[in-house]
Each structure stands twice: as structure tokens, then as C-alpha cells.
């Protein structure tokens, strides 16, 4: 069943004229039917037209087939909202309204997403409010009324050194009834800047969509450029990209484990993991000179080759880091006071997680078996698979345990790959990208599914380049995790998701 969609595999491109453009009813009914049948929305976005927008929906089939689907439809100034039937669409619809000035009729929670200017000429829907709908977090928040209910506002200035975001809690004593999150402070206009691209700057913009996911987003961009240009990355390049992606996962998972330990006041793991995260970042620096992997991934291959001595050094450091990490994280499981703090906190049920379309570790901790590396394999993962880990308890403890288990699998993977690094060229010459085509790339960054969709115009420039960071799917999960929890557990829940602000704000 493809519900009238054009089906294709991850990392491929096809003519734009191949995308079916059914009438509105068929399109929206098709999306609904597909979601009911277990498909999931990866990306849902609009391209502004003179009197409305063309909506594109990229969906992923149930695990096993590896099939992706895309369909489009043309709408005027309004289109029917599906958010109340499919909550996973709710932010996408708000984003379409904000970017393309077409209103989702019947949207249950119609508000700005990033408080950004529309991609086309015209006035946004929120111009009446102070700040013209362009000042982040200036909007009406959900309110709980009652004598003993109080409201706590946190941010955008955060106590720690992290990014800005505004959190509004409705509390009854220490218990949280509702949490609403307002972001947009980090909006830099990446999608607008990409229109008319690619330019020499584009790859750098991709690497800074979310600084800690440089490799994840870089990989998706390279896949799109390669499929549009008809170029293949060599096996050697694909292997190094895979190693870099897993090193990024290791560094961030390690950092998160340390941060979770720090939040519950458990010192040893917090301090050790902080250092070991640095070790993993330094291994990435070994490959390309940048601790975050900047400059490593380039369309056509990788920016720097690695010689045998470097590979040996990487292997050696990996062994040392594995031992250190096992020791530091092992302390967590052996401390009853830590486990008591993590268990049964911040539960998101599997049903809720499926409904709101969680991705990545946050979804796998709820028992949802989804991982792009297996479901829609790309690059080296087409040849060498990493087992997918899931947990069942859906709480902070599950998200913590999952990070450790994934780190172990990543260590095994890198260990295997560095020993059999294919020989050959590391970078193929890029070609001009093809006009009138559509390319879709999905990768599994350390936070989860990253989706890049490129639509080229008749001159081979980007007419639209749509980016979906995993945080876009997952911020709602954090809001749900806090329901009926103690407000003092918020930092811990937040850390267990560790979502990106700038990846969401673009």
C-alpha cells in the first residue's frame, strides 16, 4: 500500500514530475490512511506559491520495507488541519502556516513556531499580538485556572550555559499539570538562506544547523548533493563518515550520561564522563582537525584522508576510552541512590510516543523500534548493521540505559570498521546538480532521525531545502514527560531528552 504516494528509497532522487499531486481530499485522506496504517511523517512542508502553497509530505513506511513515500497537493490560503487526528502533524502545520501564510483550518493550538518572517511576501497570522508575532515567546500560553494553581516561567536565560528557550509550567504545589515550551530565540533563517543554493557556504550552514550534530546533518546534505549530482562516495569515504557519525553519537551520549549524573548530584560519573566526552571529541579532531567534525564530510566524499598511523592511533584511543567509559557509567547502575532517582521519572507511554511521532533514543526508550540506520540504511550502514536497542520502562532510567547500550554498540562498530578500512580514493569530483529533481535523505543523528528534502528548480538551484531536526519531533515528548511530575524533576527530564534549540529554530 502506498496510498497514492511516489515510493523510493533513502538517499535517492527522482524527477519532480514523478511526485503525484492529487486533489486536496485525496491527499489529506491518503496521509490519514497512511498514518493509520503505521506510516510515520518524516517531513511535511510547504513551498509558497502566488496564492497559497504546495504542500509536500514525506512519510516512512513501517520498519522492514525500507520504503519512503512522497506526495504533494496545492492549497490556497487555507487547508484542513489534521493535527487533532494525528498529533504528530501539529507542529508541521503550524510551521507551514508561519512560512507559507496558509492557515490550517481547525488547528487545535494555532500559534507561531519560531516567530519568524514568512518565506513569501505578506503578513503573518499573529500580527495583532505585541511584537507582531515576531518576538519569541510573546504569545498566550495555556493556563490552568484555580486557587492553588500557580505558574512558573523559566527562561529564556538559562541558569547553565546552554541555549535559550522559554518554559511555562502550570503547577499545583510541586506537581506539574502542564508544560508549554516556546522556542525560536535561535532562529537564524537557514532555510531562507538555502533558497537559490547551493553556494560554497551551504555546506558550512549545514554543519551548523545543530553544532553537536555536525556529522548527522552533514551526512544528510552530502547524500542529497550526491544523488542530485549523480556522484557516489567511495567505500572508504562512506566508512569514515560512518565512523564520524558514531563518534559523534559516542561523544554526545557520554556527555548526556555525565550530565544526567550531575543533575542528580552524583559526582564521580559526572566528572569522568565530562572528560571522556572530550576524548571522543578529540578522536573526531584526529580525523579532520575539528572536535565537532567540521570540514570532514564533503559532497563526493570526505575532506581529509586518513593514513594507517592515524587509524592505529584512533584504534588505541578507542580501547582506552571504552574502558574508562565502562567504569564511569558502571558506577551509575551500582548506586541505588542514583537508580532510585532515575526510575519512574518522566514517563512517556509507548502509545503517546507513537502518537506524537518521537524519534531516536527518546522513542527507543519507550519501546518503539525505529532507527534510520536499520529501517532506511544509508552509507556504510547498508553493509554493516548496528543492532537496534530498545528499552521498555519509558522513564529517565530507560533513556539513560539506552544511551549506554547504544554507546557500546557504536564502540563495537567503530572497532570493526577501523580494522577493515577500505582502500581507494577518499573524494570523488562533484558534478553540477540536476534541475527539476527532488532528493530525500534520512540519517540517524545521535538525537534521532534527520530528514533533508531538496527540491531543485529548472536551473538546478534549490527552490526549497527543507530540514527536519529530530528535536522538532521530540520537544513535545518532553512536555508530556513532565505531566504530573514534580517540577523539581524538570532538569533531569530535560537532560534525559537533551534536545537541540537551534536545530528546532533553524
Amino acid at each position, binding site marked *: 500500500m502506498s496510498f497514492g504516494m511516489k515510493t523510493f528509497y533513502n538517499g535517492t532522487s527522482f524527477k519532480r514530475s514523478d511526485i503525484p499531486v492529487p486533489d486536496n481530499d485525496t491527499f489529506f485522506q491518503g496521509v490519514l490512511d497512511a498514518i493509520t496504517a503505521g506510516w510515520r511523517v518524516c517531513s511535511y512542508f510547504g513551498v509558497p506559491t502566488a496564492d497559497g502553497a504546495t504542500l509536500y509530505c514525506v512519510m516512512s513506511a513501517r520498519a522492514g520495507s525500507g520504503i519512503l513515500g512522497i506526495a504533494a497537493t496545492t492549497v490556497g490560503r487555507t487547508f484542513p488541519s489534521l493535527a487533532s487526528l494525528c498529533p504528530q502533524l501539529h507542529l508541521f502545520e503550524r510551521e507551514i502556516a508561519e512560512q507559507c501564510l496558509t492557515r490550517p483550518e481547525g488547528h487545535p493550538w494555532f500559534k507561531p513556531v519560531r516567530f519568524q518572517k514568512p518565506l513569501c511576501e505578506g503578513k503573518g497570522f499573529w500580527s495583532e499580538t505585541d511584537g507582531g508575532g515576531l518576538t519569541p515567546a510573546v504569545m498566550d500560553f495555556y493556563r490552568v485556572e484555580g486557587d492553588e494553581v*500557580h505558574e512558573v516561567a523559566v527562561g529564556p536565560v538559562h*541558569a547553565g550555559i546552554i541555549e535559550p528557550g522559554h518554559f511555562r509550567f502550570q503547577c499545583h504545589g510541586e506537581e506539574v499539570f502542564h508544560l508549554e515550551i516556546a522556542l525560536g530565540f535561535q532562529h537564524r533563517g537557514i532555510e531562507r538562506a538555502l533558497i537559490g543554493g547551493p553556494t560554497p557556504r551551504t555546506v558550512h550552514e549545514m554543519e551548523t544547523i545543530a553544532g553537536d550534530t555536525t556529522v548527522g546533518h552533514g551526512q544528510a546534505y552530502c547524500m542529497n548533493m550526491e544523488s542530485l549530482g549523480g556522484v557516489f562516495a567511495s567505500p572508504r569515504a562512506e566508512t569514515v563518515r560512518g565512523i564520524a557519525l558514531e563518534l559523534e553519537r559516542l561523544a554526545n551520549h557520554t556527555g548526556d550520561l555525565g550530565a544526567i549524573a550531575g543533575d542528580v*548530584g552524583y*559526582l564521580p560519573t559526572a*566528572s*569522568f564522563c565530562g572528560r571522556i566526552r572530550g576524548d571522543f571529541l578529540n578522536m573526531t579532531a584526529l580525523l579532520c582537525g575539528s572536535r565537532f567534525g567540521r570540514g570532514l564530510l564533503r559532497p563526493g566524499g570526505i575532506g581529509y584522508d586518513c593514513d594507517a598511523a592515524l587509524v592505529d592511533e584512533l584504534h588505541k584511543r578507542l580501547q582506552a576510552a571504552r574502558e574508562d567509559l565502562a567504569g564511569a557509567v558502571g558506577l551509575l547502575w551500582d548506586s541505588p541512590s542514583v537508580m*532510585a532517582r532515575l526510575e519512574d*521519572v518522566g514517563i512517556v507511554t509507548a502509545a503517546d510516543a507513537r502518537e506524537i511521532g518521537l524519534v531516536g533514543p527518546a522513542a527507543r526508550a519507550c519501546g518503539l523500534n525505529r532507527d534510520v540506520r536499520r529501517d532506511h540504511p544509508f552509507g556504510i550502514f547498508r553493509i554493516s548493521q548496528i543492532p537496534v536497542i530498545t528499552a521498555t520502562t519509558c522513564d529517565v532510567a530507560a533513556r539513560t540505559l539506552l544511551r549506554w547500550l547504544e554507546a557500546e554498540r557504536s564502540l563495537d562498530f567503530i572497532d570493526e570498521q577501523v580494522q577493515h578500512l577500505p582502500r581507494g580514493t577518499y573524494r570523488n569530483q562533484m558534478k553540477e546538480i540536476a534541475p527539476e529533481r527532488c532528493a530525500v535523505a534520512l540519517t540517524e543523528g545521535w538525537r534521532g532521525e534527520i530528514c533533508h528534502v531538496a527540491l531543485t528548480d529548472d536551473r538546478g538551484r534549490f527552490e526549497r531545502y527543507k530540514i527536519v531536526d529530530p528535536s522538532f519531533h521530540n520537544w513535545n515528548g518532553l512536555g508530556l514527560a513532565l505531566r504530573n511530575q*514534580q517540577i*523539581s524533576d524538570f532538569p533531569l527530564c530535560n537532560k534525559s531528552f537533551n534536545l537541540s534549540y537551534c536545530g528546532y529554530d533553524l
Partner: protein
Amino acid sequence: MTNSIIHIFLALVMPPLLLGVIGKTKALFAGRVGAPFLQPYYDILRLLHKGTVFSTTTSWVFRAGPIVALATTAVAALLIPFGAHPAPISFTGDMILYAYLFALGRFFTMAAALDTGSSFEGMGSAREATYSCLAEPTLFFALITLSRLSGSYTLSGMLVNINFSVWMHTSAALLLLVGGMFIVLLAENCRIPFDDPNTHLELTMIHEVMVLDHSGPAFAIIQYAAALKLFVLGAFFVHLALPYSTGNALLDWGLFIISMLELAVVIGVVESVMARLRLIRVPQLLVAATILAAFSTLLVIR
């Protein structure tokens, strides 16, 4: 007279050192070198050199908070005997004053926090009020037990009275008391597992969140008062747990200083090897402390 001068000198100078020792111990467990022992002194000096910002929504209550907190703790420091030496000020029933001096200081800290109108500080005050009223019975059961053991109604009388032979005779009661009072010591001073003095997360804090709006010298006073409170309550606890005395005045002072440093190391170890409790579990532990102290009272009264 000499003893009184040494007493006042120690109470004024030594408290921040305890924080330094705790910090160093935690650093050792974390595999770090850690800040120097004297870092808390530097911090307080640094804060004293800064300017103070007062929110326009606050009143005199906000400014009185830190001063009352320091003043009450300083008076309490004069009531408690250090080691084998009696306190400079001692009279019948002074233990009631001792207990409620802390309550007065706490009241003003909470009032100052509420004065800012911040939702965080309101939450902090609510937590502090809840936990301190649960910690109070433990202290009073301890005082009843001690006055029963010594037949004295002064802090000096009841605490200096405890020695090795008293321990031998009533070891069960005193052991329970040591357990209960250690829990109260950690809770009253906002140490792990009750509160994390190093956290920067305002939603989880208890004591630190109440003083978020204080800055400069006012904040220096708060930090110093907190260190003094740890010192004064620690001195009480050291009497119970390490009741050594030699009879030589100077040696006894040395012994007292060493005992206090040992206590700081123990607190540092506790903070290093365990995580914080969920806030919802904190009352349970405090009630457990009360029960321990109540049983110790039962044991000496029967």
C-alpha cells in the same frame, strides 16, 4: 577568658574552611585536583568587593534577611560548647534559644525570598518551611535525651557531659541519636542528599533558590552565615559522635579542630558517593530521623 577568646576566634575564622575541606574531598572522589582549601574565603572576599543590586520590588525585609540570618547564627555560636570547653554564654534553658535562633534566621531568609515575588523563591521557601518543621522534632528529642542523660538544662552542661563512659552505658541511645542528628545536620545545611549546594538548576534547589536575588556583600553574608551554621550544628554533632577529651586545654582545642575537619571529610564522602533524593522522598528521611531520635529518648527515659 582565654578559652572564650579562642572560642570566638574559631567561630569567626574556621567555618569557611569546612566548606573548603568538603570541596576538596569531593574533588578527590571525582578525580580532580579541586579548588584550594581556602577558596571559600576568597569567594567571600570577592563578593564583599562587589556592588549590590536590589530589586525595586523588594522592601527592608529583603535587606534584613541576610543580616538576621548571620546575627542569629553568630549568637547560636556563642551558646554551643566547642569540644571539652564550655560555651562563653550559658544559662538554664539556653538550648531552646539555640533551637529557635535558627528558626528566626530561617524565618527571615524565607521572608526575604518571598519579598522578591519570584516564583522560584516562593517554591524554595515552601520547601524550606516544610523540611525545617520536619527536622525540628529530631533536634528536640535529642535535647530531651541529652538533658535526661546529664541532668542539666544548659547546652554546655549536657554536651560536655558526654564522654566515653556515658557512651559505654547508653551506647544504643546515643547511636540512634548520632544517626538522627547526622540526617538533620545534612538537611539543615542543605547538603546532598537533601539539596545540592553546587547545582545551578533553580527548579531543584531549596536553600540556594531562596537567595538567588541577593548579590555582592549581602550574598557574602549569606555564604558566611551558611558556613557558620554548618560549623555550629557540626560542633553539636561532634559532641555526640566524637566525645574525646584529654583534660589538657590546648590539646582539647586541637582535638576539636581535628574532629570538625573529620566531620567535613565525612560530609564530603557522603556527597560523593550518593545522589540527591527526589524532593518527594525528603520528608520520609526526615521522619526517619525523628523516629531514631524518639527511640533514643525512649531508651533513656524508661
